[in-house]
């Protein structure tokens, strides 16, 4: 297991470099001078040149790239152009909120999606299956800001069950939890819809396998066959989807944070956009790169945990 973890860790390094390179290319390839974009069309050439020099944009491209990669890998993500605070400080301040939201959404998605998918597969083409298919299709068609606004209207404004404002006091667990419910449900339901679909089709394949019949013939109770033998083998595609889904989850969390006015990475990125805080945007993209690579790593490790054959491959 230790060797497997080490091997995955080593494999994550080129991925990290590749994602960082992508960020660098996107920011540089887009036409127009960031300094002009920041200062406006009427800026004097001197002011533009000065800002270019400050941002390091007057350097040759290879040096910009080397500096960017070097700083990113040493944990120096730069400073905000507007507040001049280190980007990591701002990120660290809101990270608990984003982590709360993301983990709660993954939890809701898994707890709803996996059983729903398994039941749908077991009762293929029966009422429960059709209901699961229709509901999951509707669920993944909902843009999160639409479902978020609808939930907000119903549960916070109409019935007043949950608070409207999402800025939770992290030290107070009750406050933290009540303000988490609506955003987490918004984000979790879309995820549950994806997981239901994948679990269902993975289970349908597994249910036809010989080992399922063998286990049943040996007298293993059906419930145990399904949840132990079936689900464990259907687990790989499900974990893959949860891992791949992370990118969508990050995008959706931005929208959820806006709707529920929750502090988080999404809110920072939107305010950086509005203020044309170029260095902040680049720094945030680097933060996202690290998160993606981390999630890929966790997904890989989960493979090894679910299916011991992966470790030997």
């Amino acid at each position, binding site marked *: 297991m230790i060797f497997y973890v080490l091997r995955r860790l080593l494999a994550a390094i080129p991925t990290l470099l590749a994602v960082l390179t*992508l960020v660098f290319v996107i*920011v540089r390839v*887009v036409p127009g001078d960031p300094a002009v974009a920041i200062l406006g069309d009427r800026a004097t050439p001197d002011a533009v040149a000065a800002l270019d020099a400050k941002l390091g944009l007057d350097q040759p491209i290879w040096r910009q790239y080397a500096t960017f990669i070097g700083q990113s890998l040493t944990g120096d993500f730069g400073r905000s152009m507007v507040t001049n605070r280190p980007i990591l400080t701002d990120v660290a301040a809101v990270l608990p909120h984003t982590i709360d939201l993301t983990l709660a959404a993954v939890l809701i998605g898994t707890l709803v999606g996996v059983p729903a998918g398994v039941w749908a597969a077991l009762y293929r083409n029966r009422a429960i299956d059709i209901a699961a298919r229709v509901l999951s*299709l509707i669920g993944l068609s*909902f843009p999160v800001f*639409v479902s978020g606004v609808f939930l907000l209207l119903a549960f916070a404004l109409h019935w007043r069950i949950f608070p409207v404002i999402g800025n939770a006091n992290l030290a107070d667990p009750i406050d933290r939890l009540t303000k988490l419910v609506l955003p987490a449900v918004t984000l979790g339901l879309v995820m549950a819809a994806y997981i239901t679909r994948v679990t269902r089709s993975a289970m349908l394949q597994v249910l036809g396998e010989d080992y399922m019949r063998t286990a049943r013939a040996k007298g293993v109770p059906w419930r145990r066959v399904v949840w132990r033998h079936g689900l464990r083998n259907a687990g790989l595609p499900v974990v893959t989807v949860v891992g791949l889904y992370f*990118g969508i989850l*990050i995008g959706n969390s*931005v929208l959820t944070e806006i709707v529920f006015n929750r502090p988080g990475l999404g809110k920072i*990125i939107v305010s950086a956009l509005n203020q044309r805080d170029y260095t902040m945007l680049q720094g945030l993209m680097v933060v996202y790169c690290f998160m993606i690579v981390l999630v890929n790593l966790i997904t890989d490790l989960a493979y090894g945990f679910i299916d011991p054959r992966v470790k030997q491959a």
Partner: protein
Amino acid sequence: MRWLRHNRMTALGVLLCAVVVCGAVFAPWLAPYDPSDQNIVDKLQPPGGDYLLGTDAFGRDVLSRILFGARISLIVAVASILAAILVGGTIGMVSGYIGGRTDRFVMQVMDVMLSFPSLILGLIVVALLGPDLQNLVVAIALTAIAPFARIARAPVLSLKERAFVEAGRALGFSHARVLFVHIMPNLMSEVVVMGSLWMATAVRTEASLSFIGLGVKPPTPTWGGMMRDGFEAILDAPWLSIWPGIAILLLVLGLNMVGDGLRDATDPKLAGG
């Protein structure tokens, strides 16, 4: 048609999409008011009466704005997915046909693009380019290039080993002719299925970007932009965010249903999946 009758979900999806397309095409005749006409006296009218779906804070008719807003959603979705198919499909096909190291490199680049959160990617690109129709299309197309490259490449790997490809080469056809005339038609069905599913994603991304404030500039009505305006007045006029929300949901749902149906039709193994 017989297939549609057997497949109620797909039929419903086709119907939903047809309603939205008709609404967009015939908007000038169907809309009861001009979508940008401001009638301050009638501002924030609830649904019913002279205004079937109510009016917004400027006294503009919500129904008319939804009808015209459908145009932006559809134009952006169709244009960006066509662009993604053209660019991504070509990259995937050529890469798969060449094979070897080039192929491995290109696909690794695509994997990296795939792993980056698409909404964040779109957000950054629109923010750097400036929000307008053309840049929205570019940004959304960019997020969809990698999946189309993957789906176009996979069948090429086996198709290029087939006898008809060798026969074509033996007859002296160029690689380009073999690839685009003989191989390409064989993978169109998969690309089309994927295209309809990605149209749904494109509609959602456009609406999301507009909701964040990076959509086509006002006063042009867009569904996401209407949600944004409605959200600001959510306490006084909840209908302002409800109607455009339902419009977005119905179009995305329709496209997803059509995409699912097409996939089941081309791949019977997945039927009912």
